[in-house]
């Protein structure tokens, strides 16, 4: 699944994939793979990305699932 929240957060700071990759010490392709949903980063990299973008883990990496109505 694509990580559009990460892409949006990066774009809001006017950072390119290359620049964000340089800040967190990975290759541009790794950031691209995370955004496309082709790679699940480790918690260490997630935290590094969140710190650089000024977001929390929930804001960037938590996927909301549809809540089932338990009353049924």
């Amino acid at each position, binding site marked *: 699944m694509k990580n559009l929240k990460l892409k949006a957060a990066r774009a809001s700071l006017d950072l390119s994939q290359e620049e964000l990759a340089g800040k967190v010490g990975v*290759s541009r*392709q790794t950031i691209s793979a995370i955004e496309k949903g082709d790679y699940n*980063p480790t918690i260490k990299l997630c935290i590094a990305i969140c710190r650089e973008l000024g977001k929390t883990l929930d804001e960037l990496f938590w996927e909301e699932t549809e809540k089932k109505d338990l009353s049924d």
Partner: protein
Amino acid sequence: MDWGLWIMIAVVLIMIIGMIVVSRRDGNRAPENEVFDERQKMIRGDGYKWGFVSMICYFMIYAIIISASGHTIGEPELMIFIGLEIGLVVCAVYCILRDALIGVNRSFKFVVFMDAFCLLAQLIGYLRERANGALLIENGKLTSTVLPLSIAVSFMIILVALLVRRHYQKREEQNEA
């Protein structure tokens, strides 16, 4: 005892010592000096796996051919080296196509230059041997003259993979911009 066997034992010993030295050095290395990021390391692991599997498959097929036909295709050293080459090329191409051959902040141009240099050196070596009258096949078997040619082909495959991947990367970068 045959010199060839001693040379092979010496080469294996040197490789084992080399691997121990490299693994000890890498084990002591600080994380900030790492060349590859976490995704690249994972892919490189897969690359080594596929390289190893390809090499094993090659040796199995080669062993079956020898036992079925009763004669070898080429000089034993050459056929072993070709097996190693196949493993290395599969590993390299797998890593290139998934952007894991060149480390973070490492120069793509330098890698291409080194590859092209090695390719040319092997090609010149091959052409010189051929000019001196060396044959590719002698008594129905491949000779060691094939070796520089096969290495040149390996570097050529890697070079093409590098350039193809670069082309797609540039398109990706343009789309991102």
